[in-house]
């Protein structure tokens, strides 16, 4: 049985999860912490927006609630996008943003499950998905309607355990599990086509037994519709959403420029990037 997730809507929901403001949070953190992986966070902003706003259930707005859905960020280097969502939810505040990477701070440069709101310790790639498969198996055995979303990078698909987990998820009919591929076409040292070509991902996951859809990963309405469609079809099948994205999306000079995988902001590029978000008049 597939059950549509109940949207977690509250009075403030509409004002939350503005992608431009979330990108600003990412820039502020990256600047404050003088850190990298900005473009890797930008490609999943809309995906996370839709999941947090319309799908993930956190009873009592509690990131550790027993009955919650699980967002597993297997591509742990995109964690600043998740921090931005957590700020929208009020789980993080300005001090976390401005204090990013200060000595003794809790928020790391990669997903760390000791932080409430983050489910896995990832960054070493190919780990989070397997943990997500285990969570999905556990929820399935408990008979709950909780869902697991696992976001992997397309570069991360080079890792063998992803495919081990895909076999297991299909074999055990985990229709409470959705794998979301952030298909931005780049990995650390080049394009995925040049480094290790992935071929037709939809066909690959379909052949593994996944219910599969492709979507423009920056079109919120399309992502929302695709997520709903995947949950409502393919009984007994795990889901794969192949999201076509742009690495560095939202700041034109970062888009599809792979240097922003590993480049730090300086005062000038920080100011230019903030300007490019076009947040004039928007409250921070």
């Amino acid at each position, binding site marked *: 049985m597939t059950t549509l997730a109940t949207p977690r809507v509250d009075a403030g929901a509409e004002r939350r999860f503005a992608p431009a403001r979330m990108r600003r949070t990412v820039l502020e953190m990256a600047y404050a912490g003088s850190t990298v992986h900005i473009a890797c966070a930008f490609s999943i902003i809309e995906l996370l927006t839709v999941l947090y706003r319309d799908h993930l259930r956190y009873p009592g707005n509690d990131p550790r609630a027993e009955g919650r859905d699980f967002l597993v960020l297997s591509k742990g280097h995109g964690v600043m996008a998740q921090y931005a969502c957590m700020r929208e939810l009020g789980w993080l505040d300005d001090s976390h943003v401005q204090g990013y990477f200060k000595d003794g701070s809790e928020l790391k440069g990669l997903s760390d*499950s*000791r932080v409430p709101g983050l*489910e*896995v*310790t990832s960054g*070493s790639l*190919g*780990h989070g*998905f*397997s*943990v*997500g*498969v*285990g*969570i*999905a*198996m*556990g*929820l399935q*055995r*408990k008979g709950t309607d909780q869902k697991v979303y696992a976001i992997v990078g397309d570069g991360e698909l080079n890792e*063998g*355990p992803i495919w*081990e*987990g895909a*076999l*297991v998820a299909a*074999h055990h009919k985990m229709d409470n599990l959705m794998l979301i591929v952030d298909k931005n076409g780049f990995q650390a040292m080049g394009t995925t086509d040049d480094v290790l070509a992935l071929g037709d991902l939809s066909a690959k996951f379909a052949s593994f037994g996944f219910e599969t859809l492709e979507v423009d990963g920056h079109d919120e309405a399309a992502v929302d519709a695709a997520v709903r469609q995947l949950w409502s079809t393919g009984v007994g099948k795990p889901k794969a959403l192949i999201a076509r994205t742009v690495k560095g999306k939202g700041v034109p000079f970062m888009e599809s420029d792979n240097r922003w995988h590993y480049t730090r902001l300086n005062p000038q590029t920080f100011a230019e990037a903030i300007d490019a978000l076009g947040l004039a008049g928007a409250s921070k």
Partner: protein
Amino acid sequence: MREAFSNSLVRLALADPKVLLLTGDHGYALFDEFRKRCPDQYINAGIAEQNMVGMAAGLARVGFRPFVYGLAAFVPIRTVEQIKLDIAHDDLPVVLLGDGAGFVYSHLGTSHQSTEDIACTRAIPGLEVLSPADRFEMTASMDYAYAANGPVYLRMGKSDRGDVHAGPTGTLRSGGLLKVRDGRADRPGLIATGSMVRTAVDIAAELDLAVWSAPVLKPLLADEVCAAARATAGLVTLEEHSVLGGLGAAVTEITSEHQPTRVLRIGVPDRFSEHCGTHAYLLREHGLDTDSVRAKVEGFIQ
């Protein structure tokens, strides 16, 4: 000893439905009883150990108590990073069962032999390491691992060497040594683990030496090791594992800081097996057969 393992696993699983057994398509008849009595708690995760260990972490995150079985060459060795990151980092209650440790698969060569697993697991923060010597220690180790409610590696080595204890050991103490026999205070004491406890007992009977078994390799209490050092004239460690990073290392780490003592580490030299043969043959190749060990201990006495 394997029957004690199977019985313990079945007993724990019947008592707690959250106990799950995950295997990477290994175990054969070892799990016949478990599959018969607890079929819903048995998961063959396929020949995919890395995913299996990560999955165990996910299952533990939502309240299950996974016991993850593989050959020691694969669990833990193939999956050290998953154990470190997915399980130990978050102190999850997962018991890792590494079977065939040491030279059990003596004819199969290096891929199935495991003489570095204690060293690798001992350095992972929060991971306890167990190495039972006989059926009584096995039962106690399984109970200890379940009760620990955290990450545990249980090393299962050569299992047919016979009992070293006269009866049940009682509850294992965290970090505690088990006294197996008394011996002369003016001669070295033997501290052994796993399959080598039997060897230690055999030699000790001839030379009248004290013997302790170390079923809990980590943590290992400094007080226990120092007491053994004070009660004897030097210590000899015995293990079917590399001399680097295992029991010998753990003991010397303690004595060098707290109770300076001459220590002879007997274990596998820093090399792979050259040949194949019976388990007894490989022990001889590495100087771990009873005659070789006796000669080393006698040399140490003089």
